[in-house]
């Protein structure tokens, strides 16, 4: 299922450079608020599971991730793409709301290093950085993650736990001084639906 959570409007983004754009900004903004989003970015959690490895539950998640041409241009121009995995674990209870057990945000940043002509993928949680010769290689890499999640001792035996994960994609500028302008450009940012499953401990 294709899910887009942000809004986009092609004329606002593509009719740049013309003087007529000045007079149509107001209408474009109102149209952006009123009209449905235009889908270019693909971001979906295709599979996710947890596996116990030496007393630690590890999350294996797979994304269907595809950037539109605008996104690729933005990265090559120097903007940084940020991909966040939001992971939540809750103990399922029958008659009362589920109890939160753990939540984690695993963030990655993808940027282009012009001098080395490599795409750098940086794990913001660990600080690890990997270089990739192509953007697609970097995207493939970030679309398949294995993340240590929580100690098995935190899960009570006999209980049922619900795991859910979703990914969100957006842009940021290297210094934040121009980040407010992304309101006008990052119309390919996206947030996936929650992918949820249960685990009987």
């Amino acid at each position, binding site marked *: 299922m294709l899910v887009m959570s942000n809004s986009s409007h092609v004329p606002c983004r593509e009719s740049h450079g013309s003087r007529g754009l000045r007079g149509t900004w107001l209408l474009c903004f109102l149209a952006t608020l009123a009209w449905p989003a235009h889908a270019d970015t693909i971001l979906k959690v295709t599979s996710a599971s947890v596996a116990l490895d030496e007393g630690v539950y590890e999350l294996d998640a797979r994304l269907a991730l595809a950037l539109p041409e605008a996104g690729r241009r933005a990265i*090559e121009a120097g903007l940084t793409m940020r991909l966040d995995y939001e992971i939540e674990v809750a103990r399922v209870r029958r008659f009362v709301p589920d109890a939160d057990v753990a939540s984690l945000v695993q963030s990655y940043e993808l940027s282009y290093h*012009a001098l080395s002509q490599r795409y750098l993928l940086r794990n913001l949680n660990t600080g690890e950085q990997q270089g990739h010769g192509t953007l697609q290689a970097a995207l493939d890499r970030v679309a398949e993650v294995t993340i240590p999640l929580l100690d098995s001792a935190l899960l009570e035996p006999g209980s049922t736990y619900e795991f859910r994960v979703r990914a969100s994609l957006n842009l940021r500028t290297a210094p934040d001084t*121009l980040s407010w*302008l992304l*309101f006008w450009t990052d119309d390919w940012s996206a947030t996936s639906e929650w992918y949820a499953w249960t685990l009987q401990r």
Partner: protein
Amino acid sequence: MDAAALRRAASAAVIGIGGLLWLSAILFMAQTAQHSEQFSRLHPWILMINIAGLVVLVGLLATKLGQLVRDWRGHVIGSRLKARMVWTFGVLATLPILLVYFFAVQFLNRGIDSWFNVEIRQSLDDAVTLSRAAFETRMREHLEATQTLARELEAAGSAPPGLLERLRRQAGATEIVVATDSGAIVAVSKGLSSDVVPDEVPGEVLLQVRQGRPFVSLEPQAEGGYLVRTAVPVGSAAQGRGRMVVQAIYPVAERIAALADALQSAYQQFGEKDYLRRPLKASFILTLTVVLLLSLLAAWYGAIFTAQKLVQPIQDLVKGTRAVAQGDLDTRLPLTSHDEMGFLVHSFNDMTKRLRRAREDQQRAQQAAETERANLAVILARLSTGVVSLEPDLRVRTANPAATTILGDELEACVGRDLAGLGEGDSLLRQFAEACRTRLAAGDLEWREQFTFQSGATRRILMCACTPLPGEGEGEAPGGFVLVFDDITVMLQAQREAAWGEVARRLAHEIKNPLTPIRLSAERMRHKLLPSMNEKDAQLLDRGTETIVQQVEAMKEMVNAFSEYARAPRFEMADVNLNQLVHEVTDLYRAQLTGRGVTLEVHLEPAVTSVVADRGRLRQLLHNLITNAVEVLEGHPDGAISVATRLALRNGEEVAEIVVEDNGPGFQRELIGQVFDPYVTTKPRGTGLGLAIVRKIVEEHGGRVEADNRAEGGARVRVELPLNETTRAQSVQRERRAEPRRERA
């Protein structure tokens, strides 16, 4: 505080808060470009608030302009002046704003474009290319070193630790890893400065090496700095132990790495900004546009507001002037300023105040005049004197009821008509109008005269006075005339009656007393002397004394008649059956008249039952009327007398009417109005008191009597008597009230 003031305060508060919010949003939007870390998340909201504010302002302005257009089309006072002021103010504000906007946009576009001009981009690209070239040279050297190292390892056939360490030192690498083409590490040599754990061979390296191609790349490090990663295959699959991979990692000098980082950072920032250049321009222009629209709309709104403020006093003045013109002098204009307009408003209020006082004075005077007029009207209505006012052109202006009563015509209905056209035939009104008009036409503006008018059986003696009304200016023609006249007929009649009464009383006193001695003396003379005288003398004495006795008797009768006339009445009022009384009296004459060849007809209406009267006086009235008719018919062949009673209406009241008619010669026309006066008679033997006594008796009973001639010949006397005591008393009282007034008149 009233509701309107609360609403105004609430509106002002809402407008103030909204304006502050909006102004804050604009300032926030301006600050966004400089402090985006704080405002980047708020940017959409700030933008939305600004646009919402613009929409609200557009709505307000549209409302105001719509109202202005409606006022213009509706020709509302001051709308045209306001429209001209709004247009002038608006244009004066719009032109510089648009000019500034145009140049600001131009400068903005050119300024931002100048930041990203081609030279800078090209310079950065060249710098990156140059850096890459420098790094590629170094990377090629490192790759060659790695290939040499690989050949030595291949020549050695194995990778003893000492050899690998020596080769690493010789090549200057920080780390050498020997691994299988699947990535399994076989041998490692690391420098002391590097991590203990060897860096695994990345998949893309293995993939490329498996294809038989060497791998070299410049790799930025997360913690800073650069490494050069090289990898080459060692040996071949033909050697039977599988293909191996040698990965050597070489450091990059810190100084060079720092330069490379700086270049990369500059290149990235420039690229980022270049990429965001269009939205940056658009955002700046949008901010500028919002500010422009705000200024523009605020300027127009301010123009309308200012025009309204300036025109409002004028509108108030015009409205106030119209209200004053329509008579509303309570109009007070609000004093909103203390400038010249305020002075004007103050003057207007002062003027209306003075006007209102003047009007109040005028109203009081008018009210007093109305009161006086009403009083005068009441007085005139109550007056028995007729008052007629005339316009200068002799048209009737007013007439009081007494004038109508005296002249017998509805004079109040003649208001506005010319004096010359009033009345018909020989009516009293016509004679009166003609007499007055003649005097006035002759230029006699102020006069007093007694008129005698005869209309049919009615005779009126009027004392009339004319006075001119003052004109509008001194020496101007009179503003009209006032005719004041009184009916003095009754007064004169009363005066005559009083005089005759006095004459009668004196006659009765002075003449009646000597008559008896005269008669006795004559009879004594006759009795004493007649026997002793010769026949001739005796006859003479007899005729003489007889004449004396007869004349004395005649004089006695006359004196008795005068005495009867002057005698003060002593009434014994009672219900008298009129028909029965008439029947009794006429019966007394029936035999006498039959002998004279005169017929007497009596017509009694059964409805006439009784009247309140003195029976004796009423009997005398009937005797006088019938005797008068009998004397008139003396010597008249086929004489006929008719006596009738009937009911009639007089002033809405039923009265009993006695009508006595004869077929004699009738009254002389010129004497008809005087037949009831004493000593007015056409009979050779009449005393002239019969009808006078009739009128006196009638008046004593509150009735009225009229005499006229019948159309077929003969006289007719009509007597009206009230039926009951109440009506009689009212009539008598009315008559008594009228007499003194007439005397005064």
